């Protein structure tokens, strides 16, 4: 799944950004591989938006560097980047078609090229009849589709999507998801900033986790999940489970009716899953046995807590 062997499309090196009172980014570095989906994760106020605004050249970094395909980021890259901000917005009193042409022209597309592509996209999203309507007459979901088109119309090499699924119903969210995957197939790299962890696991090839202005974790999703697994196995079966053993430790155990049980058992160092199985087989009837791989959600919460001072933990609990 990973293609991180090739040179990254985007490389952020030791970027710092300071606002009057607080540091928004404190020496953040990361690399986004070509033709991949990259998840940018972090709690609110972690610095994600600050980082995105530096990549989209809305603001500049105080120090550090950003490279786009090995070149120092500069205004000539504007046409290669597409950006869907979390705060969606279009000119309300402008027609859908005109608006898309305008935004595409601002990113260097010719009027004629823009027209052809707009027709294609409006057909794909089945909103062709709306081209002559003012944006304010569209439903919210419809506006979101228009904005998504505006983000990708100029066929950017790097697409930055901030919470792309917010405001979409499940059907349209799926539509957008398929489009994102298709764009990746066609060769684009996508930075995907979200709180929806299940979509991260489903779609992202690699992630970076930012907390309190610092990157606390990054890498390919599978590698991270493997890295965070802690030798814990889920066991389901029939019988009376009673584990007292120096090599294993029961993390959680639930008894169900008819002597059915569920347990999570952690192995101590030097013990193999087969040792546990052998131990179990003599005592209970094992119906299911699998290694527990932590979800990105679990990792996210764990890492955020770890990098947070104790006093803030309770607020974090409430928030997460």
């Amino acid at each position, binding site marked *: 799944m990973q293609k991180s062997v090739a040179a990254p499309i985007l490389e952020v090196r030791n970027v710092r950004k300071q606002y009057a009172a607080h540091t928004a980014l404190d020496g953040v570095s990361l690399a986004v591989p070509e033709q991949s989906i990259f998840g940018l994760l972090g709690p609110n106020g972690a610095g994600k938006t600050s980082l995105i605004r530096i990549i*989209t050249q*809305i603001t*500049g970094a105080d120090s550090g560097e950003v490279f786009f395909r090995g070149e120092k980021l500069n205004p000539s890259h504007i046409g290669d980047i597409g950006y869907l901000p979390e705060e*969606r*917005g279009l*000119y*309300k009193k*402008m027609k859908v078609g005109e608006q898309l042409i305008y935004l595409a022209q*601002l990113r260097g597309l010719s009027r004629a090229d823009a027209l052809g592509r707009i027709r294609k996209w409006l057909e794909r999203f089945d909103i062709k009849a709306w081209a002559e309507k003012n944006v304010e007459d569209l439903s919210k979901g419809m506006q979101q589709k228009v904005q998504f088109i505006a983000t990708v119309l100029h066929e950017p090499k790097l697409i930055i999507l901030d919470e792309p699924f917010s405001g979409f119903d499940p059907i349209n969210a799926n539509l957008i998801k398929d489009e994102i995957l298709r764009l990746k197939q066609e060769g684009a790299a996508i930075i995907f900033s979200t709180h929806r962890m299940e979509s991260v696991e489903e779609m992202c090839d690699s992630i970076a986790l930012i907390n309190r202005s610092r990157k606390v974790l990054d890498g390919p999703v599978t590698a991270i999940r493997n890295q965070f697994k802690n030798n814990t196995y889920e066991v389901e079966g029939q019988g009376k489970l009673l584990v007292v053993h120096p090599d294993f430790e029961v993390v959680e155990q639930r008894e169900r009716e008819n002597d059915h049980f569920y347990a999570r058992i952690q192995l101590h160092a030097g013990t193999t899953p087969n040792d546990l199985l052998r131990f179990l087989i003599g005592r209970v009837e094992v119906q299911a046995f699998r290694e527990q791989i932590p979800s990105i959600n679990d990792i996210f919460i764990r890492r955020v807590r770890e990098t947070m001072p104790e006093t803030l933990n309770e607020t974090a609990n409430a928030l997460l």
Partner: protein
Amino acid sequence: MASKFLLVAQREYLTRVRKRAFVVLTLLVPFIIAGFGIVVGKLALSDEGTEIVDVRDTSGLGIGTKLVQMSTPQLQFLPVAGSLPEAKQGFQKDKHAGLLYLPESLDVQAPQGVQFFGKGNISLNKETRVQKALNDAFAELKMQKSGLNQTQLDQLRAKVPLSSVSVDETGKEKDSNSGITTGIASALAVLIYFFIFLYGVQIMRGVGEEKSSRVMEVMLSAVKPFDLMMGKIMGIAAVGLTQFLLWGLLSWGATAVLVPLVMQDEVGKAKTEVAATSPGATTATSPTVADQAAASADQMNPAKRANVIGGAFEKASKLNIPIWTIIFGFIAYFLGGYLLYGALFGAVGAAVDDQTDTQQFMFPITMPLILSYILGFSVILRNPDGPVAFWMSMIPFTSPVAMVIRLPFGVPAWQLALSIGLLIVGFVGTVWVASRIYRVGILMYGKKVTYRELSKWMFYKG
């Protein structure tokens, strides 16, 4: 990224010009102006039209005939016959302005018993004019009695035309016309004032809309804030110029078409009235009098009034009005003033979240503009070389209005150069300040902005 700046300006222009409100306003205002012109014209006609005064001369001194000869476009004398009561009834029936009665036993040396009857109260203005005509008639009569013939009399009758001449430093003399100069000065000042206000507020609203619709972030990922701001300012300037140009053309067209239609009967009425009321006795003078009356009515024609600026420019070349300086200065102050204030209006739009919060920032911006307008008309127009005029035409915030008022009266070259220099410094400065506020403000939401906060934004890094 000049092309992006142009794209932004183009969008600002096209979306505004296509709005229904723009079309309606552009078409409606000229008719309001034309209608206003007609009302003013009618009032002027009824106020300054020909007044006819009946003369019942029983003195046998020939004063009546002399008075008729002295008729002016404003005041005409018409000899009537019959007894005094009949004449009294007659002038009221004919709706004439009054009746002048000269009794039988009138002594030229000590004229007593001359009476002027008017309907209702007689205005001082009317009485003065009649009095003057009467005095002149008696003076002439006395001179005739003293043995002067008609030729000598005509030579004696001195009509002194007073022409004002202005002298400049080099001693060159030219005609001066304070009316035209004042007219040009006020017209230019009003144009600049309204342009800045009307379209400056549009800049502010436009920025506010971009902010509240959250389209700003998308825009900024493609366009530099400075290009976005300047594109908007220039696009709206083009909208304003289009609108002013159309207003000018349409107003001219509307008055040219409408006013003759409406005013024709007024002018015609004046002509026929004069012709009808000048029977036999005065046939020699009556056609000219009627023509004069018609001409005077024509002069009040609002169509010509509407063209007063155009006419003034024609005349200006003959008068001591520095026409090229005015044109150059007007363009410089028009652009400079609009840019200076436009940038500030844009910054206010960027700084606030809520349109209702604009008030606290609007006040200090509009203050110098309003002040220059008020003082411009009350002080500078009366004393265009005074200290108020000088200082206000140097300060960049007030000079766009103050200096154009001074221009037609002649401004020393060094003052003009200094003032324009300061204006350039001023607008570069305000555009710089505004673009810094703009850059930070457009992405700032949900924060109540104070002046302290604004001053901090100046020093934020890119």
